[in-house]
C-alpha cells in the first residue's frame, strides 16, 4: 500500500512541478530502466492531469456562467432575450401537459358537442360579414332573465376561453366565439374564484367580446392594468408571448409575428407562429415591452403552430364605437417595461382569467 501511495505522491509532485532536480533525475532513471513502472507512472500522471484539467474547466465554466448572468442583468435588451428562453424551458413541461389535457378536453367537449361549428368555425365567422352586430344590451338582458346563481355554478361548463382586463374594475376582453350563445358566463381569476360576468359589447365580425364582471367590488389586481394597447401594426418577425388558461392553469407561450395580415388576408388580424391550444382563445398577445398587440382567436387547421390573432386596433375601434356611458378608460401607463420576464408574467397573471361559458 505504501508503494502505491508513493507513486501517487511522486506523480502529484511531478504534475505540480514541485520535484527537486535530484528527484527528477532519479525519476527519469526509474522510468528509463523500469518499463512497468514507467507505464504505471504515466497512467497516474495522465489521470491527475485530467482531474486537474476538468476541475479547472468546471470552475472556469461556472465563472463564465456567473459573468453571463451579471452581463445580462446589466444589459437590459439582452436580458429580455435570454430570460424568455430560460422561462420557456421552465414552462415547457407544464405547457406540454396542459396542452395535452386541453387538447383532449377539446376533442371530448367542443367537437363532440358542437361538431359542425368547430369544423367550419372560420367559415361561419367569415360568412356572416353582413350581419355585423354591435349590441350592448341584448345579451345582458338575456342573461339577467336567466337569473343564474351567483355562487359557483353547478351546470356543466361548455366552453372555456381566456380573458384579460381592460380596466381593473372588471371590464375584460375575450373572443366573441367564446361567449356566443352563452346562457351564462363566469370568469375564474388567478385565485380560482368565480365571478359572474355579462357581455357588455361585441363585434362578431372581428370576433371580439367585451365582458363586465357583475360584482361591483371586483378588481383584477391591486393597481391599474399594467399594460397598454398598441393599435399600430407591429412588424413581421416581432417576438411575442401570450398567457392563456387552456386548462384552469395559466400557460406561457412565445412565438413571433409571421405575417401582417391574418386568415385570408384579414388586415385586422395577424398571423403568428405560436403554439395555441383550445381555451386560449381571447388570450393577450404581448410584445417584448409588455404592450398588447393582439388577441388570440384561432389556429390553422394543421397543428403546426400557425395562430391567428385579432389586432388591438380592432379592439380599439370597437371601444371607440361604444356608448361613452360604459366608462371604459384604457390604461395609459405601461408598468411592465422594466420588469424581467418572470416578474412580468407574475404581474400579468392577475389581469388574465379563464372565461367559463355555460350553455344548455
Amino acid at each position: 500500500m505504501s508503494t502505491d501511495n508513493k507513486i501517487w505522491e511522486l506523480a502529484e509532485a511531478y504534475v505540480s512541478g514541485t520535484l527537486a532536480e535530484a528527484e527528477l533525475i532519479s525519476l527519469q532513471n526509474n522510468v528509463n530502466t523500469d518499463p512497468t513502472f514507467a507505464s504505471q507512472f504515466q497512467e497516474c500522471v495522465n489521470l491527475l492531469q485530467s482531474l486537474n484539467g476538468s476541475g479547472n474547466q468546471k470552475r472556469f465554466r461556472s465563472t463564465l456562467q456567473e459573468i453571463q448572468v451579471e452581463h445580462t442583468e446589466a444589459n437590459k435588451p439582452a436580458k429580455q432575450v435570454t430570460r424568455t428562453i430560460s422561462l420557456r424551458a421552465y414552462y415547457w413541461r407544464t405547457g406540454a401537459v396542459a396542452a395535452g389535457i386541453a387538447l383532449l378536453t377539446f376533442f371530448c367537449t367542443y367537437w363532440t358537442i358542437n361538431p359542425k361549428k368547430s369544423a367550419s368555425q372560420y367559415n361561419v365567422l367569415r360568412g356572416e360579414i353582413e350581419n355585423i352586430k354591435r349590441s350592448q344590451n341584448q345579451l345582458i338582458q338575456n342573461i339577467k332573465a336567466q337569473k343564474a346563481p351567483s355562487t359557483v355554478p353547478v351546470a356543466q361548463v361548455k366552453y372555456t376561453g381566456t380573458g384579460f382586463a381592460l380596466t381593473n374594475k372588471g371590464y375584460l376582453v375575450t373572443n366573441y366565439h367564446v361567449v356566443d350563445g352563452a346562457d351564462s358566463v363566469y370568469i375564474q381569476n388567478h385565485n380560482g374564484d368565480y365571478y359572474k360576468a355579462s357581455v357588455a359589447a361585441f363585434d362578431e365580425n372581428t370576433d371580439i367580446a367585451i365582458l363586465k364582471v357583475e360584482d361591483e367590488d371586483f378588481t383584477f389586481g391591486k393597481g391599474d392594468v399594467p399594460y397598454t394597447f398598441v393599435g399600430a401594426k407591429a412588424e413581421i418577425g416581432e417576438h411575442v408571448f401570450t398567457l392563456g388558461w387552456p386548462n384552469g392553469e395559466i400557460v406561457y407561450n412565445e412565438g413571433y409575428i409571421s405575417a401582417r395580415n391574418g386568415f385570408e388576408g384579414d388586415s385586422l388580424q395577424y398571423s403568428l407562429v405560436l403554439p395555441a391550444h383550445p381555451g386560449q382563445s381571447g388570450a393577450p398577445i404581448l410584445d417584448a415591452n409588455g404592450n398588447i398587440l393582439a388577441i388570440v382567436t384561432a389556429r390553422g387547421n394543421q397543428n403546426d403552430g400557425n395562430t391567428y390573432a385579432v389586432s388591438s386596433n380592432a379592439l380599439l375601434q370597437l371601444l371607440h364605437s361604444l356608448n361613452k356611458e360604459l366608462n371604459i378608460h384604457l390604461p395609459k401607463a405601461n408598468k411592465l417595461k422594466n420588469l424581467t420576464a418572470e416578474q412580468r408574467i407574475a404581474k400579468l397573471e392577475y389581469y388574465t382569467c379563464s372565461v367559463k361559458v355555460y350553455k344548455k
Partner: protein
Amino acid sequence: MYSSLLHTEQQLLTALAKGERAATSQIYQQHHNTISSWIIKNGGAAADGADIFQEAMVVLYEKAQNEDFRLICKIGTYLFAVSKHLWYKKVQKQQKQPGNLPDKAGIDEEIDWTYEDDINAHKERETHYEQLNVALDQLGEPCRSLLKAFYHQDKSMQEIATEFGYTNTDNAKTQKYKCLARLRKIFYNAQAK
C-alpha cells in the same frame, strides 16, 4: 466596463488561462454581444448565442493553458471564428431546414476554418472529461465526494480532513491516494473496453 483595457491581449490571455475573473469578464463583455447577435442573425435563438459563445470561451481558455500559446490574431477574431465554426457544426447536426442554415456568404473560409484543429481537440477533451466524470460517479463514497471536493471544488486537504472527519491531513491524503488508485482502475478498465 472597459476601464481595464490597459492590459495587452497577451496579458489578458495569461490571466484567462488562470481562470481570473476580471480578465474573463473583460473578454466576455467585449465580444459577447457581437458574437451572439451574429448567431441570432444566422438562425439561432438567444440561448444558442450564449451557449456557443461560452463554448468558444472554453476553447480559448483550454488553448491558453498551453504556455507556449501565442495568438496569431486578436482574441475577438479567434472567438468569432471558433463560434462560427461551432455554430455550423451545431446547425449541421440538427439538420435544420435549409431556410435556417446560416448565410454562407458572410463567411471567410480562410479564417473561419483555421481553428478546426482546436475545436476537434476541444471535442476530444470534452469526451475525455465526460468519461472521467462517469468513472468518478462509479466510485463509492466517500471517494467520490472526496475527489470532487479536491479537484472540482478546489478544497484544501485541511478543509477536506475536517469535512470528512479525518484526524489529520495525512490520513486524508492516504485516503485520497486510495481513492485515486480505485479511480485509475475504473477509468482505464473502461478505456480498455
